[in-house]
């Protein structure tokens, strides 16, 4: 999406675009990993990843590998790492893209066939000897930490670790230390301390320094969340009328009004609720299918002939595959009806939940089929209240390669503010709405507001019987 072309107020930047990156450097055995794990534990959010620079070791040649097994290969000089690839990966993550990270095997001294896919993360903790070595890499980092532990202590830790945990022989360890680890540490690692923002002497033992560091990170992350929320808020505030060429509200009919009354009635029994929601869902899906792309003839131009022997004029065919994505759990309410209309349809799922305190939406899980610019994408959520979850969901779909103009969002109850927010962020997305209300989502739970039900999520709870 050409971000630069759209106006500032109508941009949506998800938290995973410009994740907060913490870089941790220090000698081998200095306690970098322990510091990283402590931070991870303290942040305590699922969208945080810990990434070791070890993944970026260059694969060895046969000759180098032989040397490695005899402790004759220098793993401790900066060249042993593919810093360019690392820069590329971090840059890609910093841009919010889905990124694949190589996996290195010390057993075979090569990259394995596996790759770790990272997407949707808010915080990245990067640790390794040379985390702060390359200025191109360091510029992506928001917080640069150097763990400054005395080299002698590092040595003793390393000895212990390699003998006890890795079962290596003493002689080899000493040889490697004297020949490679120590000289490289002094020559290449130590100077990178200069580019650190925070230096932690003695690692996690240094409680004051750790507390300060963690407090700082918490503050930065809180500021980042606040900015995200503010941006979502701003998207709803744009004074632009709803574009009814893109937002299609089902025309009111006797049946729809009657069914809405049944669905809003708190005394409606479960079986009736499910039955009538399924009926409404079929009508909505049918309406949504009017906005996918069709072509008037087959790829091979073969005519359609009816059993009466005549060529059928005015033919129409669905262009490209239809893929459905639902936002768990409210979007799931559409799936039984969808499966009846398009039996073999692929269904992707997104779990996006709002923080109960701040209301900030978070992407927890995304399980999506292969997506591309040509697919007709139907996105489902039973209700749009603030529109934040849907906005985030659409952003994920675009990150996965779907074209904005081919996304059709399908929802039953929506607030004007929510729909505006989505449209402002993604003006080319089609939104099919069963019933559009004027209720203000900020007046959540206000009884005398006639449309208060619009501002509360209840459809999924009633549909699944968990209210």
């Amino acid at each position, binding site marked *: 999406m050409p971000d630069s072309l759209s106006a500032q107020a109508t941009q949506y930047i998800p938290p995973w675009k410009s994740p907060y990156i913490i870089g941790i450097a220090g000698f081998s055995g200095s306690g970098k990993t322990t510091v990283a794990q402590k931070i991870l534990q303290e942040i305590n959010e699922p969208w945080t990843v810990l990434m070791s620079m070890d993944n970026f070791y260059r694969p060895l040649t046969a000759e180098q590998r032989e040397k490695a097994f005899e402790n004759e290969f220098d793993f401790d000089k900066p060249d042993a790492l593919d810093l360019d690839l690392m820069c590329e990966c971090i840059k890609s993550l910093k841009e919010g893209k889905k990124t694949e990270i190589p996996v290195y095997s010390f057993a075979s001294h090569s990259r394995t066939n596996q790759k770790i896919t990272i997407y949707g993360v808010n915080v990245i903790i990067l640790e390794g000897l040379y985390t702060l070595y390359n200025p191109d890499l360091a510029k992506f980092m928001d917080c640069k930490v150097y763990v400054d532990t005395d080299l002698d202590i590092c040595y003793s830790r390393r000895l212990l670790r390699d003998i006890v945990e890795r079962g290596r022989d003493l002689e080899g360890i000493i040889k490697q230390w004297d020949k490679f680890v120590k000289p490289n540490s002094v020559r290449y690692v130590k100077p990178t301390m200069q580019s650190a923002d925070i230096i932690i002497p003695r690692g996690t033992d240094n409680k004051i320094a750790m507390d300060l560091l963690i407090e700082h990170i918490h503050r930065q992350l809180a500021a980042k969340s606040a900015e995200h929320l503010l941006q979502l808020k701003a998207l709803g505030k744009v004074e632009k009328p709803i574009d009814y060429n893109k937002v299609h509200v089902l025309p009111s*009919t*006797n*049946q729809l*009004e*009657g069914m*809405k*009354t049944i669905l*809003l*009635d*708190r*005394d409606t029994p479960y079986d009736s609720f499910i*039955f009538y929601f399924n*009926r409404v869902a*079929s*009508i909505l899906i*049918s309406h949504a*299918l*009017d906005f*996918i792309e*069709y072509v008037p003839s087959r790829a091979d131009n073969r005519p*359609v*002939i*009816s*059993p*009466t022997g*005549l*060529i*059928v*004029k*005015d*033919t*129409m*065919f*669905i262009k490209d595959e239809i893929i459905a994505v639902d936002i768990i759990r409210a979007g799931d309410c559409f799936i039984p009806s969808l499966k009846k*209309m398009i*039996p073999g349809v692929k269904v992707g799922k997104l779990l996006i939940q709002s923080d109960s305190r701040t209301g900030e939406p978070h992407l927890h899980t995304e399980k999506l089929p292969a997506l591309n610019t040509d697919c007709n994408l139907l996105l489902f959520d039973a209700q749009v209240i603030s529109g934040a979850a849907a906005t985030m969901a659409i952003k994920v779909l675009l990150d996965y390669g779907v074209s904005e103009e081919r996304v059709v969002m399908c929802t039953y109850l929506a607030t004007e503010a929510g729909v505006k927010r989505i449209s402002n962020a993604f003006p080319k997305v089609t939104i099919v709405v069963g019933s559009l209300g004027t209720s203000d989502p900020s007046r959540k*739970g206000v*009884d*005398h*507001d*006639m*449309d*208060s*039900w619009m501002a*509360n999520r*209840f459809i999924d709870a*009633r549909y699944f019987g968990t*209210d």
Partner: protein
Amino acid sequence: MTEVAKNIIQLRLTNQLRCLYTIIRDENTKRADFVFYSDRIIRLLVEEGLNQLPTKPKNVVTPTGATFHGYEFEGKICGVSIIRAGESMEQGLRDCCRSVRLGKILIQRDEETAMPKLFYVKLPSDISKRYVLLLDPLLATGGSASMAIEVLKQKGVPDERIIFLNVLASPEGIKVFQEKYPKIKVITGMIDDGLNEHKYVLPGVGDFGDRYYCV
């Protein structure tokens, strides 16, 4: 939907509808697909048919405790299918109205006179008090539909409470309704070009019952 003439209602002609009809018109379409896509059209027709029924205001209390000024369905209904092809539309009606009563009428062409002849009628006893959704996928000459309507009228169902649903209509059939039964609502998916000498709708879908039930 579009009201093409007084009481003649046609489904809104969207690309999706064109697509559904392309599939059922194609002579190479397999039976399973013919059934599946016909059923989708039938569902749209049933929803449109039900929309003709009246509602009255009703207030309900929502889960948030607010009062919602809504509507409730008014009037009892029943479905009446013309055997055999009309029965293909019963499930579509049941999918929207779970316990709807279904009457059946068998009309067949008399081999000697080539005129439609009534063989069998089973209807709910209180049919005169109900709205009747008359089901037959093809409206060709309007011969059997007229006969079925005469049966309903005999049982005391007024014209304005009969809604005739069909997948495909011929201009000839539509004309019969406009002249003979102007008060009956006809809801059709599409109106085709005309009829051939065997009274098949053109370009049509062939024999709907045969394709749906595989004879």
